[in-house]
């Protein structure tokens, strides 16, 4: 694991990627910092972070696009997967390397509120709370980017798909407002989602009986709940899709709340996508 970590970290700084990422990141945050805190004489650093959360849409794909895809393209994955390292430690090593690059950028940013101290009182707790939120949000996005990169051997495809996926999660809270809130359409939408899940299961495991029975059982359960307790479906669509709105929980940090459920949520996202990445590389070797 340590070997992979060192190698990946080094490759970020022998190629341009690491420098470009950090420079771009600091540049954008710096502009907002100057405009709000220095120029606007505001003491709230969280305003800067709240306006710059769109950065992830652009920067995470740059950071993660090559991490798995390049190995596949160069066939160096053959070296890794035939070495005595288990796939889990390879993935964790890689994730930690990307995370470290991001952490370097965050470490520099966390000096900014201290600079403000010499001009007066600064709400440091909120500032560092939102930096923590920023860090967690970034780690979740990086795990998603890592997973997407493991699905393809083209860096370009990996970057574009990551970009779109992260963009959707950012826009999700806006999109959700347009969804219907009544229980009938909730039932219909969940039925469609269920059919999609069945199709995906079939595409992955090629087992008609299993995917069909999954569909029938799921649909029966949905319908049963719909007739017995229709109130359960009220506004469920919105709640459901809000769960995917990764950025939504970040707002709590900006308002000065240390939301433990959000911390757990982000950490579980990281673990979920690392797990999926391991499964995806294991599966690609089965085909």
């Amino acid at each position, binding site marked *: 694991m*340590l*070997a*992979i970590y*060192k*190698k990946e970290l080094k*490759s970020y700084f*022998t*190629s341009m990627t690491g420098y470009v990422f950090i420079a771009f990141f600091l540049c954008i945050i710096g502009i907002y910092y100057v405009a709000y805190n220095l120029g606007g004489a505001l003491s709230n650093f969280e305003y800067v972070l709240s306006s710059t959360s769109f950065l992830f849409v652009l920067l995470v794909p740059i950071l993660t696009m090559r991490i798995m895809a390049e190995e596949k393209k*160069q*066939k*160096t*994955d*053959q*070296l*890794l*997967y*035939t*070495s*005595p*390292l*288990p796939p889990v430690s390879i993935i964790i090593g890689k994730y930690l390397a990307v995370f470290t690059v991001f952490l370097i950028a965050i470490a520099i940013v966390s000096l900014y509120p201290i600079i403000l101290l010499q001009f007066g009182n600064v709400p440091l707790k909120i500032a560092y709370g939102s930096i923590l939120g920023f860090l967690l949000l970034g780690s979740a996005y990086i795990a998603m980017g890592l997973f997407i990169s493991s699905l393809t051997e083209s860096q370009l495809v990996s970057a574009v798909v990551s970009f779109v996926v992260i963009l959707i999660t950012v826009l999700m809270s806006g999109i959700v407002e347009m969804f219907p809130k009544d229980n009938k359409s909730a039932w219909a939408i969940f039925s469609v989602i269920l059919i999609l899940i069945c199709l995906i299961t079939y595409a992955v495991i090629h087992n008609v009986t299993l995917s069909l029975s999954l569909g029938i059982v799921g649909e029966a359960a949905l319908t049963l709940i719909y007739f017995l307790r229709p109130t359960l479906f009220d506004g469920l669509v919105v709640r459901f899709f809000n769960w995917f709105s990764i950025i939504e929980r970040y707002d709590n940090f900006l308002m000065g709340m240390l939301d433990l459920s959000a911390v757990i949520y982000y950490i579980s996202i990281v673990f979920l996508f690392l797990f999926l990445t391991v499964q995806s590389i294991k599966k690609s*070797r*089965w*085909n």
Partner: protein
Amino acid sequence: MIEVKNLVKKYGDYLAVDDLSFTLEKGRILGFLGPNGAGKSTTMNIITGYISATEGTAVVNGYDIYHQPEEAKKCIGYLPEIPPLYPDMTVREYLNFAADIKKVKRSDRETNITDVMNMTKISHVSERLIKHLSKGYKQRVGLAQAIIGYPELLILDEPTVGLDPMQIIEIRDLIRSLSKNHTIILSSHILSEVSAVCDEVMIINKGKLIVRDTPDNLSKHIGGSNGLHLQVKGEKEVIQKALSSIEGITQIEYEPNEQEGIIKLTLYSGEETDIRESVFFALSDVRCPILDMASTTMSLEDIFLELTQEDTNQIERVKEKTVQEDKVHEEAEVHEEAEAKEETEAKEETEAKEEAEAQEEAEAQEEVTVHRKVAIQERAEQKEEEKHAGDI
């Protein structure tokens, strides 16, 4: 050392490896031989744990590659078809990384890397970036990566691809010297390489094991009869007459005349008989000087071509033969009945017919074999010419 059991690999409906089983003892060099797409690389990828088999398993040093992958992989050094190199690393960095992920002890690492670089003769490029190296050097770095940590089993997929003739010889010597302490499986479609390096050869085609033997045995047994290539000065009729007196010649092939007065021919005899002396005396009696005499055993190349291209034909031929034999048996039964009826004339007739048929058959078969041999020779000649052209 390594045991492969009933390996099957399917890609959708395509069968890449079809029920392949073999074992290999410690210290032996096994060569995989087969045309492109025969399943050599797939088999190697499965043994090294890079991809999974649809059925079957490989056991390395007592460790199953699926159930104890870490222990099994520790015993394996693998050079894939395309060397897995990081272009942005220097050679030393790369080998250091390889040693690191192969869990070579930190204290041994420096000496290990230096030794391996000396063995593969890449010490003088150790500080260069891999992307700036030529293909031959990249191949050697890949080989160095496989050797690092001195795993007991080395699996090399076409190790001499992209090397110049001098480097090929060096790598072959290296592989031979490595076999003292390592078990080696290597694949190739270059036959001379396999016969030069390997103790044993496995010919694979369409995912199936066709034959496994030592290179010498292969050319002896599958080659069948001994051939003797001659260039004789004289008249064709005279030579034919002189040769007809020699016992032990099973077949004579004449080549089309190129030079006036010089006859080129190939004599075939049984495996055990040596006809060289009698040929010499027979021809000297009729004053036809022998200009050139060379024995032709079938090269590995011929065997390879024969086995991989005609293995399906061969099976069909065997089937045909058995059908023919059955017919003969039936006829024999008919004879007995006829005898019982004391129709001696009719019997003689059928016998005569049968003989004629048998002769025809034999001739037809002979023709087929002659055609085949001529075709194989032509191919071999073409190859040689190509090689010469390449050398020039």
